[in-house]
Every structure is written in structure tokens, then in C-alpha cells.
């Protein structure tokens, strides 16, 4: 695995993160280096532990082993100050959006400012309205999440994630369940706001083409370990069999379907 940046540039430095659920080892020593101000995408098949990895970073799931350094500070249960600092400077966009369903769109966006800062109420409202305006949700400010479409909910979750002007944003499958047009739009938004606000972003997805375009670096999680980390160009050139299998999955599917149409039998799981 290539290490793309010098250690001093690293905003997030993850080493040997391990997580087990009973007998099932989901993460078996995951390493990831995230340089400041970049978009790093973690790719991987469904069920490879990408979301668990992100939740370990966010502190929702406690890793069994390993070290996570945020801006040089080790994050662990014993270091409550560093963990608090991390939460203050980091936002998390959940796959399910995790919007509070009893609050309106405006209240959802205002919530992180209300709960974590001492900013006056009028300023909170102004910043929340500004975030809604940036994501084209102003006219839906009085609507509840259940009254919004899937795409709008995603934008609302993004508004809530950026309203605190975080330095690090963790995106868990931000395009899950969206059609290709909305998927592109979400990636556009991520890149646009990343450029605008300059935050560091860690994305977890399995949308390969969009990830390669939107990211400064990509990493591939498979078998509980990071099998690759490098630039999108390096990913495209890599001869690593797991990278190739992931990269060529669309081509493989095309060949398999063509074979099935010709009446050929797929004999082993590997053929799929």
C-alpha cells in the first residue's frame, strides 16, 4: 500500500484499527492516512465494514485495537478532551441521514449550533437559514423530514453537517439509494462545499466512477484491511488483484451476462 503524504501533513492518521463483533472480525488492522484539505474515499464491496470503519472514526463504535490520531492528538476513551475537540471540529453525514423527525428542516440545521455553541439565537437562525439557502432548501424550512423527498433529505443532512463549519466531514454512503442524476448532484455538492469551506472529507461509497472523479485519494477496504490507498490515477493503474476485481467489476458483469445470454453455464462463484 502506498503512503501518499508525509506524516506531518496528516489531518487524520489511522493505524491498525480492529473491530470484532463476537467471532466476526470486521476490521482486522485498518490503516488510512488522510491529508489535510483533501477528499479521501474509502471504496469497498457491501458488507466489508466501511460504515463500521467510519463509525469507529466518529466514535460511535469503539475499536478493539488500533490508534486514531486527529490533528496529532490520539482519540481514545481516556482522552475525553481530544474526543470533545474532535466532535467540535468534525461532522458526520449518516447513510440514513439521521435527521430528527420531530424537528423542522430549520430546527434540524440549527440544532448543532444550539447544542454545541454559545452563539446568540438570532445568529444561529441566520446561519441555519444561510445553510438551507446554500442547499436550495429555503422554501422547505418549515417542513419536517418526512415531508421531504430522499434527495432533499440528503441535502438537509448535508446542510446540518456544514452549518458548524467543520474541519472534517465524514460521509457514510452519501449517495445510497439515489438515482444517477441525484448521485452526481450529491458528489457535485460535496466537492463544491469542500472547495468552498476547505474541510477535509472522508467518504465511504461503492460508487466507483463518481468517487474517482471527486476524490483526491481513494482507498480500497477488503478482507478487513485497507488493500490500497493512492490517487485515482494510481488506482486505475494498479495491478493489485483486489483493486482490479473492484475496478473491472462492471466489465466482468457485462461479460458474465453476455455468457448467460449465449446459454453458457456459470459454474463457480468466482465466475460471478
Amino acid at each position, binding site marked *: 500500500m502506498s503512503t501518499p503524504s508525509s506524516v506531518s501533513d496528516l489531518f487524520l492518521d489511522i493505524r491498525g484499527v480492529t473491530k470484532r463483533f463476537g467471532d466476526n472480525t470486521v476490521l482486522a488492522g485498518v490503516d488510512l492516512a488522510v491529508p489535510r484539505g483533501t477528499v479521501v474515499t474509502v471504496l469497498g464491496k457491501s458488507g466489508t465494514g466501511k460504515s463500521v470503519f467510519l*463509525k469507529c472514526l*466518529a*466514535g*460511535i463504535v469503539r475499536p478493539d485495537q488500533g490508534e486514531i490520531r486527529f490533528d496529532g492528538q490520539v482519540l481514545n476513551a481516556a482522552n475525553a478532551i481530544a474526543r*470533545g475537540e474532535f*466532535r*467540535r471540529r*468534525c*461532522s*458526520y453525514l*449518516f447513510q*440514513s441521514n*439521521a*435527521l*430528527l*423527525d420531530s424537528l423542522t428542516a430549520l430546527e434540524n440545521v440549527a*440544532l*448543532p449550533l*444550539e*447544542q*454545541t455553541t454559545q452563539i446568540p439565537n438570532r445568529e444561529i437562525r441566520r446561519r441555519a437559514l444561510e445553510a438551507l439557502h446554500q442547499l436550495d432548501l429555503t422554501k422547505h424550512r418549515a417542513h419536517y423530514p418526512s415531508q421531504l423527498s430522499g434527495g432533499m433529505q440528503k441535502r438537509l443532512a448535508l446542510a*446540518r453537517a456544514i452549518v*458548524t463549519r467543520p474541519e472534517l466531514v465524514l460521509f457514510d454512503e452519501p449517495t445510497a439509494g439515489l438515482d444517477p442524476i441525484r448521485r452526481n448532484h450529491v458528489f457535485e455538492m460535496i466537492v463544491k462545499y469542500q472547495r468552498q469551506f476547505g474541510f477535509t472529507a472522508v467518504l465511504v461509497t461503492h460508487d466507483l466512477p463518481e468517487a474517482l472523479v471527486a476524490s483526491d485519494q481513494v482507498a480500497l477496504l477488503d478482507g478487513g484491511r485497507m488493500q490500497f490507498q493512492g490517487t485515482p490515477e494510481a488506482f486505475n493503474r494498479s495491478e493489485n488483484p483486489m483493486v482490479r476485481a473492484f475496478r473491472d467489476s462492471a466489465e466482468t458483469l457485462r461479460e458474465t451476462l453476455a455468457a448467460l445470454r449465449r446459454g453458457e453455464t456459470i459454474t463457480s462463484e468466482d465466475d460471478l
Partner: protein
Amino acid sequence: MIRTLGQNTLHLVEEIGDFAVFTTRGFTEAIGARKLGRRIVRAIYEQGVRCVPVIVIVGLFTGLVLGLQGYYVLNKFGSEGLLGTLVALTLVRELAPVLAALMLVGQAGSALAAELGIQRNSEQIDALETMGASTYAYLISPRLLASLLVYPIQTALFCLVGLLGGYLSGSVLLNLQPGVYWSAIYKAVEPQDVAECFIKAGFFGLLTIAICAYNGFNAHRRRGSTGARAVSASTTRAVVFSSIAVLATDYLITSLLVKHP
């Protein structure tokens, strides 16, 4: 078998410890919390205003039945005049705090456990945690603080409606002199009875809301159930445990406060 017994005991001790920490954090993290007052008002509405109909209905029928049964029993001894005493002391000392608490568990407590369970399931609580908010100050503290106010008021309402029920069955239906009924109440109920009633109500409120909140908040930690089933299991558990806690605590408080001859 010994191993299972040991494991279950350890699990029980661990859970009691967790519950104590949970309740303590529910109070301590309220200090300095923003917009707490607004959320307390909402919790008062959920536990209080929305539960008034059930309190009134159950209180009224409890009073009606007490008046009816009491009248026929006392009539055998020619002591119908003591009906007000019987209804008032039974309600104030025991039935009002216990039945009001059980009704509130059924309505407000179960709703609270289910709401928190769904919020846990849909990652809303995780979202609060990742944004650096205190989930205790936001979700738990307002409910605990509201319960300390709402339960005594609801219990008082239950008492008043129950006394009215006793009057309806004793005086209106069975022709006991209203003056006899109300003066017996006035003479029988002492300040200590009222204090006992409110002490019980406050304890029951705190205990039941804490148990319901704890179960909903930790719905994801229930072994052997996930998703919607975890929510239903935690809600059931919240209602059952709260009801048992009300009855057990009632016995303990009564044994401590009861006047010895």
C-alpha cells in the same frame, strides 16, 4: 446452572449500575443545557396534558367503585357516615399515587420508551452524539425534570376526581348526606397523608420515567432482538419494569412512612 446464575447476577448488577449512572447523568447534564426550559414544557405537555383524560376517567371510576363497595360494607355495621373517610384515605394514601403512576406508565412512559427506541434505531441519537450535543441534556433531562412536577399534579387530580366519584356513588346514587360525606373527608385527611401522597407521586414519576427512558435509550443493547423488535421489546420491558417498580416502591415508602400506633 451455577454459571448461568452467576452470569445473570453479574448482568443484573451491571444493569443496575448503568441505570444509576444514566439517571444521574440525566440530572447532572441538565446544568447549563441550552433551551432546556422549552423542552421541559414539551415534556410536561406529553406527560401531563395528554394524560389528563385517562387520569380523569380512571380516577372517576375508581372513586365510583370505592364509594359503592365501601357503602355496602360500612352499611352492614351502620357506619355509612364513614364512607368519606374510607374513600379519601384509600385514595390519598395508596390508590391515587399508584394508579395514576400506572396510567402514566401506560400512556406517557410507553410512548417515551418507543420514541427513544425509534430514535436510537434510526441513528438520531448517534447523530446528536456525533455533533457533540449532550444526548442526556437533550433527551433525558427534560423528561426527568418534568416528571417531578407532572406526577404529583396528576396524582392530585386523580384524588379530586376519585373523591367526586365516591360522592356520586355514595351521595347521589345511594342517598348518603353530602355534608356527612365531605365532612368525613375533611376530618380524616391529615397533612401527613397528603405529604405521603406527594412523596410517593414524586418517587414514582422519577422512577418510571427513568426506567422507560433507560429502556428506550438502550434499545440497541437488548440481546436477541434488533430493529423494530428491539423497540417493541424495550417498550414492553419499560412498562413491565416500571409497573413492578411502582408497586415495590409503594410498599417500601409505605413501610417507612406509615404511622405506627
